[in-house]
């Protein structure tokens, strides 16, 4: 493709193909040279198609068979010239854009500069890191390339996309970034690590360490794992055996991970068969066919096509986006992998999940399946990103609870299972949930028994919905702001709606029609709880505390592994050092 050989990205600067003018002491690195092609292939195809279309039109305009072959051949020359010129222009610009795009990593931030006419330099602070994704669109996947996206909670479009890189380079960079963001500083040695060597070491680093730990730590099937903390010990033990304990880090290993659950393709298909969207699409199709059969008017087919295609597209996107869904736990947080055509590997560090929801539609009741979604700051919501906010596309209750455990390992209550069961399916007004008063049935005749909340030491639980059951959990330290609202009818019945404002995402924590007094008290208490939880929340650099613990233990002459079980570091949820 190009004479320039890609640098081993994320490795120390080699100086060979580094940056043109290193600003300060930053070591600027370039993307893989084929990046413009991977990014722009659709544009190029469209351009070619457009020109082709224009040409055909012109040919037709020239018209009549008799309209002289000489004219047509003359036209071909022009077309060929135009195509060549256009391609040269596109490639020239792409090459220029590629030359102007570079990234650099230092201990505190990631720097990205790009743009030909309008220069842009972006600087993302690593302690604000919310998530790291490695995305591989189909074409990039075929070529072994990947794009790395850093989300830094600055609203949509604030993320830093570094790509495309070779797959192993992207993984290297991710490990490096996570290590820095975690507070485990990578030592930058002057000697460049050969790319081949890095590639050889890399892939087995994870599994090898992973195999060392017994599988008994997997919380897997039974939700009991939520309570007894066994998986915590398993993961944590490995965590301290991994990176922080061995001090100097010449080569940043990818944190070891342990698979927690995966969604088989069969279940995914089955779950889609049981989703309302499919039935809407199917009924729509039947309706169209019947209408066409009755009226013999095929125009209906054409006018109904967009709706059917839209519905089908949504279903396909769900299937393709959530295909092969796997969740794993590592000291760097939750790792999710999914995708059929375009794959995405997400890493959400501990404490970055702002809110979780568990939902169950009416047709999922039979197999007791649940869908778990999360809010993560920086993950934009919009088309094509639906699967980004999913923690579990579909799974039985035990698996859903395991997913919840990934986010909130400690719910801060004595009998979490009973509480959660009540939150998921309960309608009893005398349980652990404070529910909406009976008079609110005038406003919500179907689900009023479900509207309710419960508070634990660590999180607020809001349940609602009878046809579509929903349970939302917000860790106290992730509360942004709170509100109560009351409309005229609610006022007459002395009820009010309580809302927790969370970052943008699919989860909107709110509970309607609570008793006005309850809502007022909840507002007051929740403000206080959020305050105290924030004061004791884990550090942004999630490894720092653990490293300190390990240090302390080493000073005491104990093995580093002993640091793990009790305080259970390495667990997501940012809840280190809270009993």
């Amino acid at each position: 493709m190009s004479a320039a050989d890609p640098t081993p990205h994320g490795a120390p600067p080699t100086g060979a193909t580094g940056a043109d003018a290193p600003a300060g002491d930053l070591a600027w690195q370039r993307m893989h040279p084929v990046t413009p092609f991977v990014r722009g292939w659709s544009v190029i195809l469209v351009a070619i198609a457009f020109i082709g279309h224009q040409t055909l039109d012109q040919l037709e305009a020239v018209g009549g068979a008799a309209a002289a072959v000489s004219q047509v051949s003359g036209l071909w020359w022009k077309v060929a010239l135009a195509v060549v010129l256009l391609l040269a222009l596109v490639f020239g610009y792409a090459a220029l854009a590629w030359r102007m795009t570079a990234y650099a990593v230092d201990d505190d931030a990631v720097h990205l500069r790009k743009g030909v006419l309008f220069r842009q330099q972006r600087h993302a602070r690593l302690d604000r890191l919310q998530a790291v994704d490695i995305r591989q669109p189909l074409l990039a996947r075929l070529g072994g390339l990947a794009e790395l996206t850093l989300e830094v909670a600055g609203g949509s479009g604030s993320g830093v996309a570094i790509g495309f890189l070779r797959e192993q380079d992207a993984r290297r960079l991710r490990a490096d970034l996570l290590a820095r963001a975690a507070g485990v500083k990578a030592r930058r040695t002057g000697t460049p690590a050969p790319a081949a060597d890095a590639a050889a070491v890399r892939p087995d680093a994870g599994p090898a360490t992973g195999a060392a730990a017994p599988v008994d730590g997997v919380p897997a099937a039974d939700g009991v794992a939520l309570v007894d903390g066994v998986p915590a010990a398993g993961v944590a033990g490995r965590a301290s055996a991994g990176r922080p304990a061995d001090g100097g880090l010449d080569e940043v290993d990818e944190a070891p991970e342990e698979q927690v659950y995966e969604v088989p393709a069969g279940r995914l298909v089955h779950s889609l068969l049981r989703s309302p969207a499919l039935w809407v699409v199917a009924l729509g199709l039947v309706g169209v066919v019947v209408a066409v059969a009755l009226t013999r008017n095929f125009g209906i087919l054409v006018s109904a096509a967009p709706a059917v295609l839209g519905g089908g597209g949504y279903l396909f996107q769900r299937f393709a986006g959530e295909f092969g869904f796997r969740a794993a736990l590592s000291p760097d947080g939750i790792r999710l992998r999914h995708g059929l055509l375009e794959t995405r590997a997400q890493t959400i560090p501990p404490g970055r999940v702002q809110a979780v929801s568990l939902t169950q539609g009416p047709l999922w009741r039979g197999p007791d399946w649940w869908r778990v979604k999360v809010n993560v700051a920086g993950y934009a919501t919009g088309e094509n990103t639906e699967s980004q906010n999913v923690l579990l596309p579909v799974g039985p209750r035990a698996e859903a609870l395991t997913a919840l455990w990934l986010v909130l390992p400690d719910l801060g209550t004595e009998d979490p299972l009973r509480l959660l069961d009540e939150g998921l399916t309960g309608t009893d007004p005398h349980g652990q949930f404070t529910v909406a008063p009976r008079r609110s049935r005038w406003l919500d005749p179907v689900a009023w028994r479900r509207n309710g909340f419960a508070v634990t030491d660590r999180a607020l639980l809001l349940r609602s919905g009878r046809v579509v059951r929903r349970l939302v959990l917000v860790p106290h330290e992730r509360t942004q702001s709170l509100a109560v609202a009351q409309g005229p009818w609610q006022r007459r019945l002395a009820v009010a709606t309580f809302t927790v404002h969370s970052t943008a995402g699919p989860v909107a924590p709110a509970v309607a029609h609570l008793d006005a007094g309850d809502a007022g008290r909840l507002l007051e208490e929740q403000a206080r709880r959020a305050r105290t939880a924030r004061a004791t929340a884990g550090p942004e650099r999630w490894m720092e505390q653990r490293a300190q613990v390990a240090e302390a233990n080493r000073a005491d002459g104990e093995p580093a592994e002993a640091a793990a079980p009790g305080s259970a570091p390495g667990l997501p949820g940012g809840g280190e050092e809270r009993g």
Partner: protein
Amino acid sequence: MATPQPTSGDPAAPFEPVGVDFRSVSPRLVTARLVSGAVSVVVPVVVGAVLALVFSPWWWILAGVPAAIFAATAVVVPRQVRALGYAERDDDLLVRKGVLFRSLVVVPYGRMQYVDVEAGPLDRRLGIAKVQLHTAAAATDAVIPGLPPAEAERLRDRLSARGEARLAGL
């Protein structure tokens, strides 16, 4: 508006937290809102009136509907402005608003990402400004309109200072 005791079953209970004195905003906000409302209404009313006089009395509808809406607004706006209130507590800011649809928002200082102070030409002439608080949640609707500029400035500085002191990640 009465201030009943916050007991269970009292519809106003959530909006009257114990021991919190809400500060109200400047009554000049009424003028500001009415003037901007009148400006948007004046064109259809004038056009409707002219057409009605020239062509057919049916055109009075075009003039009448906006005028009636404006009259209704003129009744509601003063009440809305009176219902607006804010209170600074040690750790959070409370913003209350609404007559028919009431709401109370609690914004912890430690969660504030930034504070906006805005004043349009009309606002400047009337001597009021708008302070808006932003958190990482887009849903946070904490807007205090109709503050005298000095108060807006004081509030902004105070909020920033407190936010800095209590800032926690996300």
